[in-house]
C-alpha cells in the first residue's frame, strides 16, 4: 500500500461569524482543523470516538461532535464554538455566568462541550424536570464535577439572562 502524497481540498467555513477559506486534507477531522488550523483551541478532544462530547460545537445551529466529522464535509457550514459565546465586549454569556456561579466546572476540559450542548436548550430548562434536564445533557461526560453544578447552572442561565436584559 502506498501512502498517497497529501491532497488538499479547498473549503470554506464560517466560524463564529468569520469566513475562513482553507485547504484541508480530506481525512482531517473538523476538531483538528478548528484547533490546529484556526487556533480555536477552546474545542477539546476527549475521546475522538464520539462518546464524551468535549468536542461539541454548533453546526448550522445544532450541536454536533466535531471529532466525528471531516472538515471537508463541513464545507460551507456555519459553525459556532465556545470562543464565539461571550459577547464582543467581553461580557460573559448567561450560561457562562451560570457555570461560574454554580461551580459547573473544575478542570474545564469538558466545559466548552457542555456550554455548546446546553446553548440550544437552556431557555427551556425551566420547563424540564430534573430527569429530563439530565437526559438532555446526557451526551456529555464530565469526570470532575459529578454534574451537580452543571445541572444547576443550565437551570439558572435563563434567569440570569432575564436579569441581564432587565432595564
Amino acid at each position, binding site marked *: *500500500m502506498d*501512502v498517497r*502524497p*497529501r491532497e488538499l481540498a479547498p473549503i470554506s467555513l464560517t466560524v463564529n461569524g468569520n469566513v475562513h477559506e482553507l485547504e484541508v*486534507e480530506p*481525512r482531517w477531522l473538523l476538531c483538528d482543523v478548528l*484547533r*490546529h488550523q484556526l*487556533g*480555536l*483551541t*477552546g*474545542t*477539546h*478532544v*476527549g*475521546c*475522538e*470516538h464520539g*462518546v*464524551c462530547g*468535549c468536542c461539541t460545537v454548533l453546526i448550522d445551529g445544532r450541536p454536533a461532535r466535531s471529532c466525528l466529522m471531516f472538515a471537508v464535509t463541513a464545507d460551507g457550514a456555519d459553525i459556532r*464554538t*465556545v*470562543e464565539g*459565546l*461571550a459577547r464582543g465586549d467581553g461580557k*460573559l454569556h448567561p450560561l*457562562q455566568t451560570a*457555570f*461560574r*456561579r454554580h*461551580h459547573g*466546572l*473544575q*478542570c*474545564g*476540559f*469538558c*466545559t*466548552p462541550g457542555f*456550554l455548546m450542548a446546553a446553548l440550544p436548550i437552556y431557555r427551556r430548562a425551566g420547563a424540564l424536570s430534573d*430527569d429530563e434536564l*439530565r*437526559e438532555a*445533557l*446526557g*451526551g*456529555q*461526560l*464530565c*469526570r*470532575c*464535577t*459529578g*454534574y*451537580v*453544578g*452543571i*445541572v444547576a447552572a443550565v437551570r439558572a442561565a435563563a434567569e440570569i439572562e432575564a436579569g441581564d436584559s432587565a432595564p
Partner: protein
Amino acid sequence: MFGERVERREDLRLLTGGGRYTDDFEHDAAQAAFVRSEHAHARVLDVDVTGALEVDGVLGVYTHEDLTGGFAAPLPLLVPHEGIVRPRTQYALAAEEVCYAGETIVMVVATDRYVAEDAAGRIRVSYEPLEAIVDLARAADAGATVAHAGAPDNIAGRVSEEKGDVDGALANAPHVFEWRFEIERSASTPMEGRAVVARYDERDGMLMVYDSTQAPTGIRGGLAALFGVDLERVQVLAPDVGGGFGVKVMQFYPEEVLIPWAARRLGTPVKWTEDRREHFIGSNHERKQIHHVRVGCDDDGRILAFETRFVHDSGAYCPYGLIVPVITSAQLPGPYKLENYRYEFRAVYTNTVSTSPYRGAGRPQGAFVMERTLDRLARELALDPVDVRRRNLIQPDEFPYEVGVTFQDGGPTVYDSGDYPRGLELLLDAVGYAGFAAERERAAAEGRRLGLGLGCYVEGTGIGPYEGAAINVMGDGTVTVAIGLSTQGQAHETVFAQIAADELGVDVERVQVSTGDTRRIGYGVGTFASRSAGVAGNAVKRAARSVRHQAQEFAARLLEAAVDDIELADGAARVKGSPQSAIPLGRLALVANPLRYAYGAEATEAAVFARKAYSSGEAPLHEDATPGLNAVEYYSPRSGVFGFGMHAAIVEIDPDTCNLLVRRYVIVHDCGRVINPLVVDGQVQGGFAQGLGGAFFERIVYDDTGQIQNASFMDFLIPYATEVPAPELHHTETPSPSNELGVKGVGEAGAIAVPAVIANAVADALERPIDSMPLSPLQLFDMLHPDGNGR
C-alpha cells in the same frame, strides 16, 4: 474571605475557550505516534521500520537501539520501599521483552499526527508470544506462569505489620469469622488524556517541556538528570490540566522521556497527545485487590482482633512502588479502634497495565473491606449495624490517636483530630435512619426492594515532604503567588488567592496565582494525596505573612510610625485608625525598591527615597530587607492530617432491569477548616460521582490473553449526568491542630466510601452478602435468580 464561597478566578479563562492545555501549545510542532505491543507477553524478535521511513513527512523512527545512556535504561522506580523484593520498571522503548499489551516499542516522529500514524502502521514487529498471566489470584500462587521471563515468581513486594497480639485475641474471641473480598481494576480516565510537548533551544541549551502532569517539578528533576544538564537548563510547565485523579502523577511514563529526547535530537519542537485508546492501554490503572479477612469479636460486635491478608495487582511493573497497598494497610482501620490488627500483603506482577494511585488510592479497597466486615458481623450476630459501628468508633477524647501501623510517609499513623461519633449521629439524623425500617416495609408491601447502607472512612491527607510559595507585589498592586504544584481543577488559583488576600488585606481579585511552572518556583512536590490545601496552603500563608511584615516595616519607615501600629487593609498599608495615611501596596512595593533611575512617577519617588536615605547616612536597603515586597517560604509537615466522613445510601433495585436506583445519598464530611465551601462541595460531589462509577459501572475487563476488552468510553462506562444523583452534603469542621490554617485535604474524600456504602445498601436490599465490587445489573439479576430462571 477564608471560609467564603468565592467564585473561582480560573473560570473566566476556562469558560471562554481561553484555557491552555498541553495540546494547545506549539501547533506547528512535529508529532509522535507509537507502535505498542499487541501481545500481553512476548519476546520482540525483530522490528522492521523500512516501510515507515518511506513515508513522506517522517522525521525519525526510533527503537530501543537508538537510545543511549539513561534513556536506554529502565525508567525510574518512583517510590522506593524496603518491602519491594523484585523491582521492575519498563524501558521507554521495549528492549527484548514486552510484558503488557500497550507497551511502547517504536516511536515515529513526523510532520503531523496523521502522517506519524500512517508511518507507524507500516512498521512490522515480529514477536515470539509467551504465555501471559492475567488473573491476580493465580498469579500469586507458587508455580504460576510468570509475567516476566526467567523470574522465579510474580512477587513484586511484600509487607506485613502487627499491632497487639492478633492470634492471641482471635483464640480468645467468642466469635471468629472469615471472609473474602474483592475489588476490581479501574482507572482514573480524566477527560484530557496525557500530553507532552518539548522544545529545545540549541543556542542556549534550554529545554522547555509542557506536560499534562500532576508533578512538574519531579519531571524537571528527572529530565535534568537524564540529560545530564543543570536543573536551570530544564523548565517544565504543567499548564491547564484536564483532570488527573492520580494517573498523571506517575513519572515517568515513556512518552515523557521520549518526547524531550526527540525534540533535542531533531532540533524541532515535538508533541505527543494521547488518544483515548492509548490512555486505556498505556496509562496506569488501579484498585484490583483480593482480601482475606479474619475477625474476632465479642457478643456486642466489639472487634477484638482483625487480620487481613491480601494480594495487590501491580500490573506488569511497579513504577510507583508499593504505595497503593501500603495506603490500604494503614487506612483500612478507618475510624475504628483495632487494638489487635495485622496486615500482610503481596504485590503481584501480571501481564497488564501497571497500577498506581487513582483517587482514593487504596482507601476505597480498605473501606470496602472494613465496612462490609462490620455489616456482615452485625448480620451474623443479629445486631444493628449502627450499634456495631458506635461501639467500635474512636472517641473524641482519644486524639491524637495512634493507629499502630506505619503511614505511607514511613512514620507512624497518628490521627490528629476528629469527632467520629458526632459525624455518625448527624448522618443517621439526616438520612432518617430511625424511620427507615418502616419505609422499607412499606416498599416491600408494594413489591419494591429498598436497602440502606452506611460507610465511614478516615483519609490521611496533606502529606509532605513540602511545598513552597513565592509572593511578589507588583507596582499596580497586583499580588502574584507562584506555587510549585500544578492544578487539575481544584481551584488553586482561587483558594490560595483567598489565603494571600486575607493576610495582605487586598481584594481576592488582585491576587494572581500561577501553578505548576518551574520557571516561577523551582521547588515543589506535586498535586496528589489530597495534599495541596494542607501543604501549599500553609506555605502561602507563611509567604504572605513575610510580605506583610516587610510592608509593615517599610510603611512604618515612610510614615514614621511604630511597626506595630501599621495595618494592611483595602490594598494599602496605613497607621491604624488613620485611613488618610494609607499607602497603596503597589506604590509601597515600588518605593521599597530603592532606585538609581527614575523611569516613572513611582520610580521617581523610589529614587528620591534612596537619595534621602544616603543623605541621612543610611543604606537605602536595610539589613535583611529585600527590594520591593516579596518572599519565598516553604512548609514541611511532620506527618499527614486526617479528614473523615460518613456516608449513607438508600437504594432500590429495579425488579425488571436490575438497575441500581440511588434514591438518596447523604454525606457528612469533615476536612478541618474550609477555605472555600463552593470548592469543597465540588470536590466531594465529584469524588462521589467517581465512587459511584467504581461501585456500579467502571471495571477494566481483561481477557485471559491480556487484551483489554473495553478500551473505549463506549465500553468502559463512566457515569453521565443521568446516572449520578446529587448527594446531600453536611459538614462538620474539626480543625487540624497540626497546621496553622487548621485545614485538611478533601480531594479524594468523596470517592473513598462509596463502593462500600453501595455494597452495604444492595446487600441490605437483597438480603444477600456482596463481597466483590463493582456490581452490575447482570450480577444483581443473577443474585435475584440463583436458579438461572429468567435469563
